[in-house]
């Protein structure tokens, strides 16, 4: 992990014309909210996710991860490959609780 120094921002937040654009569709998080999160001190994909819920919805970031990475890399002035990615989580797609618990007497389990 790269050393990152974090201090209070010195310039005010500057809004952009397309800040209202929805980037994370599942949780309805906009580009402006992601830019604001970086301004507030978030420096990684996981921090943005935890702060805003971007990538926490039904698709678990399948749709928005690359877009959020793009915004993050522009805001932080980092190459696209250096923003990291959100932690992948089990199950890979949503599973009904009863199936997940293998508690249905009629099923044969996994």
């Amino acid at each position, binding site marked *: *992990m*790269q*050393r*990152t*120094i*974090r*201090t*209070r921002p010195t310039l005010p937040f500057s809004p952009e014309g397309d800040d209202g654009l929805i980037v994370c569709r599942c949780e309805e998080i906009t580009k402006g909210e992601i830019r604001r999160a970086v301004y*507030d*001190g*978030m*420096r*990684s994909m*996981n*921090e943005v996710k*935890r*702060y805003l*819920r971007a990538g*926490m*919805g*039904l698709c*678990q970031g399948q749709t928005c991860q690359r877009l959020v990475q793009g915004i993050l890399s522009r805001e932080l002035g980092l190459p696209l490959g250096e923003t990291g990615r959100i*932690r992948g*989580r*089990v*199950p890979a797609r*949503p*599973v*009904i*609780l*009863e199936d*997940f*618990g*293998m*508690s249905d007497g009629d099923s044969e389990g996994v």
Partner: protein
Amino acid sequence: MDADFRRSDVLIIGGGIVGCATAYRLGKRGVKALVIEKSEIGAGGSCRNAGGVRQSARDVRELPLAMHAVSDIWPTLGEELEIDVEYRQRGNLRLGKTEAHIKALTALVAKSVSAGLDVRMITGDEARAICPHMSDEVAGASWCPTDGHANPLHTTFGFYKKALEYGAAFVTGVTVHGLKKIRGRTRQALTDDGVYEADRVLLCAGYESRAIANTVGVDIPVEREVSEVFVTEQRPPMFDVMLGTSDADFYGHQSKHGSFVLGGMGGMEKYTSNDASVATHGITAPRLSRGVIKYFPTLRDIKVLRTWAGHYDVCIDGVPVVDNVGEAPGLTLAFGFCGHGFGISPAVSLALSELIIDGESKSIDVSALGYDRFRAKS
């Protein structure tokens, strides 16, 4: 410039909620903190917990912290941090299904009552009146109406953001290997990025704190144990209380977002989880799912979206160390929270800021959480 950055009034090792909140409180009193974090902000237990803000079923030694947090800090914390911490004070139900459960719960209640907490035993029907949708298997519960839950992510990042505003600095991606005394005082942190120095050092890095404290001759009996949580899709509001069970089948709540955040253990963690990995285990969340369905049959068709795991820093006697270290002047310890640190962290940070600046915790009694309380069997 780099040399300046490496010096501060207080070095805080660990960028979790305790480190962020203490940096904020120090900043408010004009003391500058530099927080060193090896990973990301809140990457440990601070963002890996189910958000309980609970006084009931706590050890009486940490009850003063829990009661102060609930009465004096949590109700206005969102306004103070200017972020929605999603604090809901709608009570905590600890559920029992069998006679043995009820007996265990009754004993816990008696202890809390003697320490001055408003908590009582209620019947299964009374519990179902508070939290409908619960199955008839619930035979009784302990009920603490002033308990609740909050959003650990927003709370942690809220403290972080406020700490920055009040002049604290943070450095992430830097690992502390040890501490060094200069003329008898704990002043330096030795890291993979060179030496950082301050007049005071706060060590609040969870389980990893133990090895760091060892480098100045202090050992706190803390081990780590993994615990897991699963998160569901959104549902319309179903209940607002914080839930736990006597049998530890699961604990958790429905978040403001609508998702259910439910956690617990698979039962084999003591023998499988003492390593640095926080990967989830294939048997744990399914076990929790079975537990949840027994208490809430109506949730059987809700979708599980993700699972995650985190480490408890388990102290041998079940409560943390929050204290200044006599033999290593300048060093303050705060770790060993045993999986119930989030709810008390706003109060812990207040106690820590006073321990650091004033030499003693005046607002809250933390005298039972001393670093030198551990004794071998006589």
